[in-house]
């Protein structure tokens, strides 16, 4: 993995690392809260009342507790990868690895994808602040200053093209 050159003192590196830790904490917190608020004993009891088949007909209405548990599991599943990757990206910044930028961008993409998926499913309220945060982060990561600090997309050895003369 390529190391960042000369960016030890660059403040976008530190800011991004901090923002990613914050994002990981937020996403992890949302997942944890969703799991915490489910009464798993009640879910177990409600599930035992349902017919023992995985292929339930569409007419069967799931109890609210079971539906809540389902939501919590889906939320954890869709937010777990970006949370882990956000921590890895933050570590990448800490150790000044160039792959950190790519990981950070992937985190924003996965988080936005997760939010849009949840939006199309049952539209929990927490997705909106996450979406806003990810939009701002994606634009910040793609800004010329940050990309220059991380040397992302900077090609070297291009043909010498001089400015227009007489």
């Amino acid at each position, binding site marked *: 993995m390529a190391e960042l050159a000369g960016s030890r003192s660059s403040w976008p590196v530190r800011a991004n690392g901090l923002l990613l830790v914050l994002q990981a904490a937020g996403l992890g917190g949302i997942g944890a809260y969703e799991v915490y608020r489910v009464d798993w004993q009640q879910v177990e009891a409600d599930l035992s009342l349902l017919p023992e088949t995985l292929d339930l007909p569409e007419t069967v209405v799931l109890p609210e507790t079971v539906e809540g548990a389902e939501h919590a599991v889906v939320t954890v599943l869709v937010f777990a990868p970006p949370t882990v990757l956000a921590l890895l990206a933050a570590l990448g910044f800490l150790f000044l690895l160039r792959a950190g930028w790519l990981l950070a961008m992937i985190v924003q993409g996965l988080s936005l994808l997760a939010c849009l998926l949840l939006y199309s499913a049952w539209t929990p309220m927490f997705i*909106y602040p996450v979406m806003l945060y990810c939009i701002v982060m994606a634009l910040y990561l793609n800004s010329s200053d940050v990309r220059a600090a991380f040397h992302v997309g900077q090609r070297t050895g291009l043909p010498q093209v001089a400015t227009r003369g007489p």
Partner: protein
Amino acid sequence: MGPETDEALLRRFEPVARFTKGDRFFPMDAERYVRACSLWVRRPGEEAVCLVPHGKLTPGLLAEPRRDDFGTVHYLMFTDPKEAKGLVRPRARRKALREALQGPGPTEEVFKAGRGRLARVGYVSRVMDTLFTLTFLARGRVPGSTAAAGRVAYTRILADHEHYRYHGRVVRQSGWVVLQYWFFYAFNDWRSGFFGANDHEADWEKVFVYLSESPSGEYTPEWTAYSSHNYAGDVLRRRWDDPELEKVGEHPVVHVCAGSHSNQYAPGEYLTELELSFLASLARMLGAARTFWRERLRQYGDDEAEREDGTPAIFRIPFVDYARGDGLTIGPGQDKEWTPPVLLDNPIPDWALHYRGLWGLYTRDPFEGEDAPAGPMYNRDGSVARPWYDPVGWAGLDKVPPPIETLRTVKEQKAAIEARRAMLEAKIEEKSCELKGLGVETLAARGHPHLRALHEDHRRRIGELSEEVNRLRASVAADRVLSNFLEGYAQRLREGDREPARAHISYAQQPASETKLRASRLAEVWAAASVGIMLIVFLWLALDERGEYLVFALSGSIALFLFVEAGFRGRLIRLVTSATLGLAVVAALVLVYEFFWQIVVVAVLVLGLYVLWDNLRELRR
């Protein structure tokens, strides 16, 4: 200057032409070509009529004046359509070539394409390429076996008299002595032979060498310009001391592209892009959006995705021009020597001066790519071509004085600017006096109600005059700065300082790097097959999957194709960035949809708070 001297000058700097292995057509005598052709005419709304059949045409007959209706096209036909029909099968082609090859003929070396052009460009360009290929079904084009027939006919000419000839002309313009080397090829087989954009009978290409002449009559080469497709201007030009310009003694080296006969300075494989004019407005809109994204939003933009004029590259179809220089070399001391040239001046040969028609088959292609070109003097529409009447301007050299004149031009320009400045200063003095007079009159009129009209008229005139004096003073200030710079430039010239050799080049074509050419065979196969496979998969999904899963299946398959593509092309970062920004745009639209009024309220609130904070801050100061 007499013709002998012209010829000596041409021969002194004649180029060395390096061809690509497998190229089949070389510079030849245009008159011999004419003798092998038939002459045709196509009048508007009528079938083509043969005016002079094969074997009967002479340069003299070609030059005969022909009056005809507007829209009439005269053209030559090099290949015999009946013979071409008989050469569809490879065995028939080989037999015809063996029969034509009675003596030394064109090179029999075989061309190997190497890594295909499709592996070097993205999906959109590859889809556009497929569409472009399909347009040949509707457009006029040179029939498939015509290139083979052209090769047989050319081989016969060479077998009869082997020659490698250019047509030369010496022109004096704007202080430059321009040596024009016109290369005539019997056939452009770029499409059929080298996976290029077009085929056509006849091809006129050119190499110009620009000399400066000292007062004692000595010539010094200063610049060269090589023709390359439809390019014109600075991009064609290289200074004699430019390291990119290879030379053998005093002979500039030209690397001729296989089939297209476009000329390059350095050997290699060049990506040439064909612009689709009907998509130009869409490309401009995308270019404007990209500029907004980069400059206003300060976002990163990918330089590879656009070209020198800022338009996106995706609307251009890429073709590879092979200028490897590993085939036959023609020139002084090379594999083959130039046959003494044909001079195109003093006088201009009749066939060049009087024949304004096409030099090969007229296919009625609306894009003109498959139509033969006109002669060296003319464009396809019969108007005089710029390289002929303005060879200095064609290469963008009209703004550059010859070195011997540069210092004098700088001094003259400085003198002109100073004279203009003196004139402007006199004018300022005059206007200032007028302005002061008006000012005094205005002050005197104040306090006298009956002079109100005069007062207001004076104020208006003062405003206008003041603006004019301001403009004049700005011009004088700019002239003063310019004059100082010209003085500095003159000083540098006196010290022997020159501009960098490549300062005039804004965008230079570069051959593909070794790294790009080393891509794996798998990447090439993927590039060739992926567009077709993707369409088949889409069709299969559309037929097989129904309902809510179709969208997911299509999205998943597109994502998979894009991911594999990005992996092969080493553009994962670009893909991730584009996908994330695309998702960010969708998410932003969702937020706007869900919280439109809240966003408006927050925006107004933030604006109000900012104004409050800004004003209070001012009060505290």
